[in-house]
């Protein structure tokens, strides 16, 4: 069920700009038919969430094609023109560099970057937010940008993840690998974006089905492993309503 300013609305009232078969229309239809209530202060707030979700999917595709490579935290690397590589394996924005420039560089100079799957998710979310807000607003909101997996994401993106009734395109999901080989802790799981068409984007696995993701992770289990990798029933996303205030 979708409620806007306290009033229940039907998809036909709001789906004009989202063509039939589009991801936006799919999200609206799923929300409307759900038993959960999706509550918005205004139509604009809902439209911002839809736009940001579309941009999350687009940023996932772009990062997949950017030439970035995979490395565990030990061997991560970044373009030193824009970032400091910190001792804890993070990328810290250099003074005098705007966040928008540095984030965009990851997508245009991908070969200069190597990182783990969690950092890839964070980069996708920043790029999507950059595409959803004015550049100047983005630079103001994310001054002092610091990329290190999930460690600080509940603060600046308002990121949260929890068990959900519904899943939507653009959600963050996680494939867990409980029997991972201790030699390769980086494959303890795979952070992914729900692409909305039955596939998921994860770094460096690429855009794959759930079965393919599980198959890949199972290849990195310890000898005589008992448990298969699996998709967790939780999902996450940035705080759409908070970010919509800056549109």
């Amino acid at each position, binding site marked *: 069920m979708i409620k806007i300013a306290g009033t229940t609305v039907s998809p036909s009232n709001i789906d004009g700009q989202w063509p039939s078969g589009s991801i936006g229309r799919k999200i609206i239809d799923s929300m409307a038919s759900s038993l959960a209530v999706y509550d918005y202060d205004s139509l604009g707030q809902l439209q911002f969430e839809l736009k940001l979700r579309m941009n999350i999917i687009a940023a996932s595709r772009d990062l997949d094609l950017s030439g970035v490579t995979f490395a*565990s935290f030990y061997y991560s690397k970044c373009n030193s023109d824009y970032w400091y590589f910190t001792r804890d394996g993070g990328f810290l924005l250099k003074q005098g560099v705007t966040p928008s420039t540095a984030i965009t560089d990851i997508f245009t100079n991908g070969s200069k970057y190597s990182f783990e799957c969690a950092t890839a998710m964070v980069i996708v979310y920043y790029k999507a937010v950059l595409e959803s807000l004015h550049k100047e607003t983005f630079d103001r909101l994310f001054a002092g940008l610091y990329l290190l997996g999930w460690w600080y994401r509940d603060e600046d993106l308002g990121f949260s993840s929890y068990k959900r009734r519904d899943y939507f395109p653009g959600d963050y999901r996680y494939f867990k690998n409980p029997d991972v080989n*201790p*030699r390769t802790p*980086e494959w303890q*799981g795979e952070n992914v974006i729900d692409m909305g068409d039955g596939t998921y984007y994860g770094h460096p696995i690429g855009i794959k089905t759930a079965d393919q993701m599980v198959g890949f992770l199972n290849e990195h289990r310890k000898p005589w492993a008992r448990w298969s990798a699996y998709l*967790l029933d939780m999902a996450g996303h940035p705080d759409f309503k908070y970010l919509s205030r800056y549109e």
Partner: protein
Amino acid sequence: MTAPIGTQERIAFLDQVRLEEGIDKLKKVFKESADHNKEAAVNSLNHENLQFTSLFLLRDEIKKLAILEQLSERNRISMEIVEDILSREKESPTASCRLSICDHIQMVQAVLRWMLETGSKDDGLSAEFTQVLDTTASLLTTVFRDETVLPLIADLIFTRSEKEFFNDYLIRAFFEAREPYTLDLIANRLRSPQVKEANLARRLLGFVPGIDVHKDTEGELHYRIFQAWLEENSPFLHYRGESFQETSKPVPYDVVLRGKYLGRSVSVDSGEILTPLTKEEYQILEEFENEDEAVKDSFATQSEVMRYQSFDDWKTWVRRPLKERQNAQKLGGSR
């Protein structure tokens, strides 16, 4: 330095050179020694008190000299483990088998412990060295379930945090031990006057209700909250394995409410109640499982409290229909 390399010192000669004169000098001295007398160089490596760091730093020289076979079992196994960790290849090289397989397994654990215990003194030496230490810790906690190394791993986690070194995989290795009582090794740090130490302790234990990650002035209170929570819930904790790779607020353990409600310990691995249930207990649980999580949490906690107060009263209480007890609760009574 031209002193003969012997094996009688308390601190191994190679460690002494490294600690007093640095890594380059260590390599130079070892090479000169090997050129002059290969056997003496091998003996210096096989010194009982040698620290893992020196062996790690000399691995290229050892390869060049082709003396792997002359190394002690400890050193040879250790070299094989390092090669395996850093190879990035999936297939492990064949383990050396001079020992019987049963002795070999025990020797591997002892060597891993030696690598971690002596190597941790030089944590941060290089990315490769960090990777070797982390993997060593993980093998000990996950494969060997070796709890004796957990205090050392906890120390290492907090030392790294102080130095702002990479910590994620080591934190995971600690939690993968799956021993709730070892959380106390972290909880002690909630009271630390060192800001970074207390901050990380709150972050790691932030899943415990009542511990506020952002409140940095209530260390003693947080510690007491943790102790009360652990005392109340430790037999009912299930390891979920959530880590910082998947969320900024991992919940490594959750409380199995059905176990807490019946007062039956659960498996930390599976969350299943460990002992067989009676027919009556199944019936009690069936009613309980139909409630929502908040109600189950409330009744499980109440059940635990009553069991401690009077086991006989509790037995009567838990057998009464749950709805009846809910109504009594609404009217202000607990029975």
